[in-house]
């Protein structure tokens, strides 16, 4: 019985063809590695078809020990095969032809089927040219799912099977003369029992020369010949034999590819909408204006949509988690430390988290929406131009873009930058990007103090972050670690209409992840706050809790940025924010409530109170009702209004929170990616900048004279930072040599 072997790369359609030819139902799927063993079935009375596992090469050394590939290779070299059907995946022609060049060396009758031609986008394959290049082997273009094509393949197969005896096969060898000489020498030294072996002596010689072991073939006698050949070729190329041979194959494929694969205009070039939109959105000047408009609209949409349901979420939390818990604990007469932990700690923390949810979700939704449309790479492209004008590495924009989501993966993303210098610069710039954690804090402040234009405040915070990052990068590039700039090359995909289902699912997943992350901090903070609030001492003639004493002692450090002494929770929140930025608003909410002890009266009928409150919250979703009841109901918002007495203090506090020190995870990640010296520089630099900008805002809005000292001190701190970091850079360049520092 004659045997036909089906061979090709994984997921090229071998089993589909096998099933179509043999009427079997072996498992097929759209991923690689489905067939992992040899499957055989009868095609006709005297013809058997063998479905071999997918492989990229029949040289074992190339496979890093993949078992399925070894099965295919071993079968070919150790069994009698009469005919080969090589299936080529047209979407990955070079990779497929690499295997083809090896199969043709076997000198067996072979049919080459170019499969999946129906899936080709913007490319056509010239079958005639391919046939010419691989003459005398038969080539057919097909789609193995199409019954008509299967009939054609069957005809070709039967026809070729009849004519195999007449066909004189000339092997295609794509090697240089030196390699060919070596192959011949090994071939002459080979002693094979040809009845047992399918493969040609030539194919076996090439494999042995590549350093592969072939089952049942002893190479001990060939040692001297092989050694001499390898030495000769390796001395010439300074590489392993298998690489020299592989490169020769690729060179051959590269030489025939221009005639075979004809590229058409891309989808983007053909799409008039993409072209027209890109004329505006990637325009030199209009692009930047469009970017700003789009970002502003994004915040406007996110904040206005979220604010309508924020009150409902907040009220649900306050009714059930604060008042409900207080009612139960009151009935149980529980101890004070327990009450503080559950009501002011956990209850208040989770209520604040609930009020975050709408804004976090709408922000994730808006950003996902932009990503789905294909606008984000354009935003990178537009900003790159601006960055290059300022002599900054264009590629650094990618980590900065990721920084809008979270600074930690953004710092990890700096690994993509080619030089150590660029990685340091991008890593120091990244924490100025307004991440989602800080966004939640700013959204609450903006909707409390600037209810008519919260999006303007958020937008200006984003812009300030970007500007400070650019200035920081500029100072670093020009004065601290000068060097060459690297270009940004990225693909601009065509625009597409976003799929709502995908965006909503994605935004929900991210919101849930955000809530769990914040949830961990709430529990921890609640524990610390309840312990610190339950321990009291005599302080300046009055009994105060430990938390109040700590707050009172650290607050003078923040007087210069508008935090008054009685607003000590604001300074404690800044310190808590170093752990994680989300904790700023949670700490504020817990401390304000704890210090005010505002749950003094509990409702006599809890359920009537709850129903009434929730009903009112739902009514607030109705625009007319909302207009007539436009008042702040959230206790956090009321407390914020009480402690932050004027808007300039609020703005200074917000800008300070935007710029001061990255969170601890970001600092650690940056230290791991570079070293602790640069991580400390990043922390002190951002702290100095934050002090300077916040105190300048106060100075400009209040015309206050007392913070001139703060401004002077921060300017000196910034100057010191520059001097110290320049010394760090010089020392590192000296230690690593300039070339290494500017390479990796």
């Amino acid at each position, binding site marked *: 019985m004659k045997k036909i072997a089906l061979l090709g790369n994984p997921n090229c359609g071998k089993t589909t063809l096998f099933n179509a030819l043999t009427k079997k139902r072996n498992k097929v799927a759209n991923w690689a590695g489905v067939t992992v063993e040899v499957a055989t079935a009868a095609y006709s009375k005297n013809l058997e078809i063998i479905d071999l596992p997918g492989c990229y090469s029949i040289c074992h050394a190339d*496979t890093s020990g993949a078992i399925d590939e070894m099965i295919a290779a071993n079968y070919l070299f150790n069994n009698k095969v009469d005919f080969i059907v090589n299936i080529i995946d047209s979407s990955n022609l070079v990779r497929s032809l690499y295997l083809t060049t090896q199969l043709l060396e076997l000198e067996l009758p072979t049919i080459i089927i170019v499969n999946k031609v129906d899936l080709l986008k913007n490319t056509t394959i010239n079958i005639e040219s391919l046939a010419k290049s691989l003459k005398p082997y038969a080539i057919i273009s097909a789609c193995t799912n199409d019954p008509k094509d299967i009939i054609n393949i069957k005809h070709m197969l039967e026809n070729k099977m009849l004519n195999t005896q007449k066909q004189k096969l000339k092997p295609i060898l794509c090697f240089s003369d030196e390699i060919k000489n070596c192959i011949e020498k090994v071939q002459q030294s080979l002693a094979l029992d040809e009845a047992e072996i399918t493969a040609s002596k030539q194919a076996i010689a090439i494999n042995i020369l590549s350093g592969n072991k072939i089952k049942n073939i002893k190479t001990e006698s060939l040692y001297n010949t092989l050694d001499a050949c390898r030495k000769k070729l390796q001395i010439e190329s300074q590489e392993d034999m298998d690489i020299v041979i592989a490169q020769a194959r690729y060179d051959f494929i590269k030489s025939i590819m221009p005639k075979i694969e004809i590229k058409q205009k891309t989808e983007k070039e053909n799409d008039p909408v993409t072209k027209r939109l890109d004329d505006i959105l990637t325009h030199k000047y209009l692009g930047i204006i469009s970017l700003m408009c789009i970002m502003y609209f994004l915040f406007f949409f996110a904040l206005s949509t979220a604010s309508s349901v924020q009150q409902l979420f907040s009220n649900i939390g306050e009714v059930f988690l604060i008042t409900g818990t207080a009612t139960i604990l009151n009935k149980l007469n529980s101890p004070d430390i327990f009450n503080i932990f559950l009501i002011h700690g956990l209850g208040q923390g989770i209520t604040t988290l609930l009020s975050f949810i709408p804004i976090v979700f709408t922000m994730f939704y808006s950003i996902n929406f932009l990503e789905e449309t294909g606008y984000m790479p354009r935003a990178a492209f537009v900003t790159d131009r601006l960055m290059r004008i300022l002599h900054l590495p264009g590629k650094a924009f990618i980590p900065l873009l990721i920084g809008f989501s979270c600074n930690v993966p953004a710092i990890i993303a700096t690994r993509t930058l080619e030089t150590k210098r660029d990685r340091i610069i991008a890593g120091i710039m990244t924490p100025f990007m307004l991440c989602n954690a800080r966004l939640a804090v700013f959204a609450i402040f903006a909707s409390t103090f600037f209810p008519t234009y919260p999006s303007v405040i958020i937008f200006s915070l984003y812009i300030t972050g970007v500007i400070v990052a650019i200035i920081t990068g500029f100072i670093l590039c020009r004065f601290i670690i000068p060097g060459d700039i690297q270009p940004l090359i990225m693909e601009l995909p065509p625009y597409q209409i976003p799929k709502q289902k995908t*965006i909503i699912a994605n935004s929900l997943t991210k919101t849930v992840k955000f809530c769990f992350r914040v949830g961990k901090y709430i529990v921890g903070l609640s524990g610390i706050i309840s312990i610190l609030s339950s321990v009291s001492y005599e302080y300046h003639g009055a009994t105060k809790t430990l938390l109040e004493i700590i707050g009172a002692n650290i607050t003078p450090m923040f007087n210069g940025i508008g935090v008054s002494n009685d607003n000590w929770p604001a300074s404690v929140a800044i310190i808590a924010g170093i752990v994680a930025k989300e904790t700023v608003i949670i700490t504020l909410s817990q401390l304000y409530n704890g210090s005010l002890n505002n749950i003094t009266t509990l409702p006599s009928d809890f359920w009537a109170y709850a129903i009434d409150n929730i009903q009112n919250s739902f009514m607030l979703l109705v625009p007319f009702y909302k207009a007539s009841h436009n008042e702040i109901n959230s206790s956090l918002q009321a407390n914020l209004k009480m402690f932050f007495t004027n808007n300039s203090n609020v703005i200074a506090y917000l800008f300070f929170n935007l710029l001061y020190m990255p969170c601890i995870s970001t600092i650690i990640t940056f230290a791991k990616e570079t070293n602790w010296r640069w991580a400390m520089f990043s922390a002190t630099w951002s702290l100095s900048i934050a002090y300077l900008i916040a105190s300048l805002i106060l100075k400009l809005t209040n015309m206050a004279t007392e913070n001139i000292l703060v401004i002077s001190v921060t300017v000196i701190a910034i100057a010191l930072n520059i001097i110290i970091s320049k010394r760090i850079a010089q020392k590192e360049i000296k230690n690593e040599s300039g070339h290494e520092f500017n390479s990796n």
Partner: protein
Amino acid sequence: MNLIQIKKYFQSVPMATTIDVAEHFKTQPVEIKCYVEHWEHKGLLKKCITKNKCGSCSLCDFDLLQHYKWSTKVA
């Protein structure tokens, strides 16, 4: 550009994507892909798990954005 040059490039950087390699050799990523895959199959180039994708969209070819790291140990 050939297999050896690509090997040398990967040995000189901590990690890189196919796009980075293409950018370095001033060519198209598709032309690099097969060489990168060759080293990957040989077990000398390892895929790195990174979170550095810009978000949820699937418009870019993620094969080209995959980060690789040169490894001297064959799996």
